[in-house]
């Protein structure tokens, strides 16, 4: 087993306007804010709605599915990472935004752009839950 954290601490975990997203991950939900002023649902979560700059939201759970938009295998990163590792740029299935996430459970040869992926959540210690992605497999 590795002793490396394999992630970097995001800088907005404590930010009151975004913390519901990180809290949601702890309970297994991938949440996006919907603006109470204009109804826009957007991702990534931010302090203000990018459409109308409203700052009051309700938080909605997304499906946790996505599609691989592009990927890279990194051989060059901070000492926090075991190398190499696969990084995917993933379109959220709802079409509202993207995440760049570690790809687990696949080799580079098994990846193809457009393939369906599932967002998984891991407890990364320090009370932080993080997302990563795996190929979507129908059991």
């Amino acid at each position, binding site marked *: 087993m590795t002793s490396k954290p394999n992630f970097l601490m995001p*800088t907005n975990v404590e930010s009151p306007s975004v913390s519901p997203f990180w809290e949601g991950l702890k309970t297994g939900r991938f949440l996006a804010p919907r603006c109470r002023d204009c109804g826009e649902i957007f*991702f990534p979560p931010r302090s203000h709605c990018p459409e109308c700059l409203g700052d009051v939201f309700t938080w909605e759970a997304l499906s946790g599915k996505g599609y691989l*938009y*592009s990927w*890279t*295998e990194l051989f060059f990163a*901070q000492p926090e990472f075991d190398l190499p590792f696969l990084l995917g740029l993933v379109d*959220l299935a709802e*079409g509202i935004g*993207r995440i760049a996430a570690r790809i687990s459970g696949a080799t580079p040869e098994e990846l193809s752009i457009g393939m369906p992926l599932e967002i998984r959540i891991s407890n990364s210690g320090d009370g932080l839950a993080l997302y990563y992605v795996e190929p979507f497999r129908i059991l």
Partner: protein
Amino acid sequence: MAIIGIGAVEVGRYPERRESDLALQVIRDALRDAQLSSKQVEGLFTTPDLQGNIGLQTNLLCEYLRISPKSMAEICCGAIAGGLTLKYAADEIQAGRIKTALCYGAVREASIGWFKNLSQGKGWAMIEPTALQPYAAYGIIWAYALSARRYMHETGATEEDFALAAVRNRKNAAGNPLAAFKKPIAVEDVLRSRYLSSPIKLLDAAASLDGAAAVVVASEDVARDLSPHPVYIQGWGLCHDNSCVIPTDDCSKSISHFTATREAARRAFQAAGVKPDDVDVAEIYAPFSSHELIIPEDIGWFENGEMVKAIRNGETDIGGKIPINTDGGLTSRGHPWAATPLYETISLVRQLRGAAGAIQVKDAKVGLMHCEGGMMNNGLVMIFGRG
């Protein structure tokens, strides 16, 4: 407006020299080339390298040069800023507020500070905390790698096609006295070099190095009086797309082609009254060989995906349809990022003066300079014409 003076040091490493030392050398060379006295400098436009002197770069130069400009700015806008020094100098001259301006940029101790700062503080804020940050790595190679992979998916380009662009740049660099890397390389060398972030390999990537460059801009009447070979700034276009590095807030935003480059080029051609095919020689800001294929399609010389055939057929070589990065480009000239747009400009000025030596494009009359910031999130395209 016209460029009447250029000065630069060979791209490399200068750990023993202070930035002010490099600055005074390249500024002196540019002023002598322009046959302008430092006391005649009316505008000073610089860009900091984010390691020191931020906010005091113009301050320091005014004392060291003993000049009192009427207009000045220290411009900080990512890697496009070196190009913006020229744009704002030209704006001030066009508005009639000044008649001469000095533009300057430099990077020192490149390897020590920039990537560390980008990862651990100053630049880190631009990596979206919720959507990217937990897994984003040093620098922004990973972002360009995602872009390159997507371009391969959409066009059928291969890693070998990217390698061809790196080889073209290296061949050209051999004829540029300011270039850092001149030893010839073959496609196999690029393909065998180690992966940094697939599909990008070591020899596909621009090395972050030290450099310093200065350019003197003047009004047309001053240029006519002083310069035997003015290079006219015929027009420019500028655009910032609504995105930051990798766009995460909208699945329709492309990372294989870039709106900012396209808009900047369209506006530049319109302002200068020329068409893409009128350009004889171009310097483009491609930090990785993959983007040597993407950017020419965005500027408008080729349709999407056509650069694959063009790079295989040598259409961007010296003597080809549109010679690109005749000075070695970012990958072989070397990449002192804050000064890179000024190095590109200097190479075009040499071409348009007919003074480019071994890399001269025959009878070059119109030159195009492209630079950008983030990952092509913004773009500046400037058109130059022979005097």
